[in-house]
């Protein structure tokens, strides 16, 4: 693997744009780090950090010039790999037209190791079974992933427990490590496409000192996880906790609002929405994000088979950490901590697992 150093991300962003990519990277908007299209490196959130704890997120000032000095943002790659609304088909007087999948050429800049692990989970879900999803495949193939190795994990992060981070080891086209004194970026290439892009931008070869400094960033980050989970035998232990009294206790705090599943980078459930026009001659079917916390989700024969909040919370947590292994041979949780931060009542999966197991 070729490892190089660049002092600025400006040439990289310009090169990506000249190759026809829409560069989507972190920006600050509405009091949070949000993914948005950027055209130059000045739009990156220099000197901004975040403070995250259960049910609370705040942007902070860092008093340095790091542009990636924050942890997981409310947006994961899911919004791009699996958009919230996708037209599936249109019927016109008995003729069915399948909607052509939109697959914009997006270079996603700043995805973290946990996000890459989540994309690997989605790849398994959408492409690994007997019925691969061609629309998902098209979007993934059009997407370029530029990872950033986390320097500043958040208060709700636990990627170390889940074995997914903080250093990106696979699944990226390029991986950056932001270094200071002097401010520079170490770039590792992870694919042929990534290597081509690096060749086209100005850089110098990485020195031994650069590589050691980058390793130190990931080593220190790994010691700063805000949360941890004991995953030893978790699949069996959770399956055996079906009758735990904790389910009712957590349900007393759970709003069943769906926020945890919406921000989760691996929650992939959707429903279909059918609409007709006034003439009744045209019908459209749209795939939309759904959640196992709604009653409609488990409606069978006119009522929900998971009517209680405790049944729904148990279903979600058990799927993430136990039955996901049965279904896909891997964990459904990557340890990004979004469900903890963005739960309005601050329910902490790591705490719940500790109490249930």
């Amino acid at each position, binding site marked *: 693997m070729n490892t190089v150093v660049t002092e600025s991300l400006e040439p990289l962003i310009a090169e990506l744009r000249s190759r026809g990519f829409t560069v989507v990277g972190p920006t600050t908007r*509405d009091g949070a780090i949000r993914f948005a299209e950027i055209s130059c490196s000045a739009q990156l959130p220099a000197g901004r950090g975040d403070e995250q704890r259960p049910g609370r997120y705040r942007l902070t000032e860092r008093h340095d010039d790091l542009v990636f000095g924050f942890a997981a943002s409310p947006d994961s790659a899911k919004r791009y790999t699996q958009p919230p609304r996708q037209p599936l088909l249109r019927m016109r007087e008995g003729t069915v037209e399948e909607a052509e999948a939109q697959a914009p050429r997006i270079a996603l800049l700043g995805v973290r190791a946990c996000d890459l692990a989540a994309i690997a989970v989605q790849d398994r879900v959408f492409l690994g079974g007997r019925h691969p999803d061609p629309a998902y495949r098209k979007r993934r193939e059009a997407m370029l992933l530029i990872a950033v190795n986390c320097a500043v994990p958040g208060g709700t992060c636990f990627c170390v427990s889940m074995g997914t981070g903080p250093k990106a080891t696979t699944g990226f086209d390029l991986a950056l490590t932001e270094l200071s004194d002097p401010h520079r970026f170490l770039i590792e290439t992870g694919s042929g496409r990534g290597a081509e892009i690096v060749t086209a931008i100005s850089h110098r070869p990485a020195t031994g000192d650069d590589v050691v400094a980058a390793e130190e960033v990931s080593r220190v980050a790994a010691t700063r996880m805000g949360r941890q989970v004991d995953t030893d035998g978790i699949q069996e232990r959770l399956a055996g906790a079906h009758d735990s009294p904790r389910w009712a206790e957590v349900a007393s705090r759970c*709003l069943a609002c769906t926020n945890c599943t919406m921000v989760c980078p691996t929650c992939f459930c959707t429903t279909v929405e059918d*609409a007709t026009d006034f003439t009744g001659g045209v019908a459209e079917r749209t795939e939309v994000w759904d959640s196992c*916390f709604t009653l409609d989700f488990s409606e069978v024969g006119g009522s929900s088979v998971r009517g209680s909040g405790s049944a729904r919370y148990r279903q979600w947590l058990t799927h993430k950490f136990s039955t996901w292994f049965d279904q896909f041979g891997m964990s459904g949780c990557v340890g990004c901590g979004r469900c903890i*931060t963005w739960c309005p009542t601050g329910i902490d999966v790591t705490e719940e697992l500790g109490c249930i197991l």
Partner: protein
Amino acid sequence: MAGPAAAAGRPRLAVWKFASCDGCQLTLLDCEDELLSVAAEVDIAYFLEASSAVGPGPYDLSLVEGSVTTPDDLRRIQHVRRVSKRLVTIGACATAGGIQALRDFADVREFASIVYARPDYIATLERSTPISAHVPVDFELRGCPIDKRQLLEVISAFLAGRRPFVPAHSVCVECKARGNVCVMVAHGTPCLGPVTQAGCGALCPAFNRGCYGCFGPMESPNARALNAQLRELGMSTPELVRVYRTFNATEEPFRQAAEEAESDT
């Protein structure tokens, strides 16, 4: 409105008003782009807000706005039901009694004595009640006001004889799909979104405002858990009571939420 010849064969629509501000029936006129196709497929036979020309009943679909607040309303809603094959109530007044149901928490005669010079001229009921308290209702469309997109969905669903796609889950589902940042978590802004039914498209949070519950309680509201968090964010007991006592104050989960807030102190 189209004449009787052009109306032949088309389903006949009526729009009725009870105690309300007219905002929900105006949503139908506000459809603008879609209004012509509605008018092409439906004979808008009775809609006083739009036309004084009145076609006789019976009507295939009646949209009813407003709550029942007078003795005359009690009689009139029975007539509306009799002349309607399908009856859909639109807006918080019709589905929950509306803002005027705040009278339920006080003495309406006292209000009348303060507001009117001759309160003895006022014939009003003790309570403001939803249409469903008086006649069978085929579908209730929530909101203050209702959402135009949902109104069109309900009308086209009834024309096609299918179930309308009007989910009863929380506003948060729409809020996240829209890409809003959570105002409660990121800004500390109190928000009723987690206990409120979706349908507005998460309008208020999209402008960095908290949801104020105008679509009423969602399918499984846990207001007690939300109240604990709203107190953490600094809301006092009177503020909590007030936030639930607006357009859907008498919907049972919101009524309870306000009562629990009072008794938890």
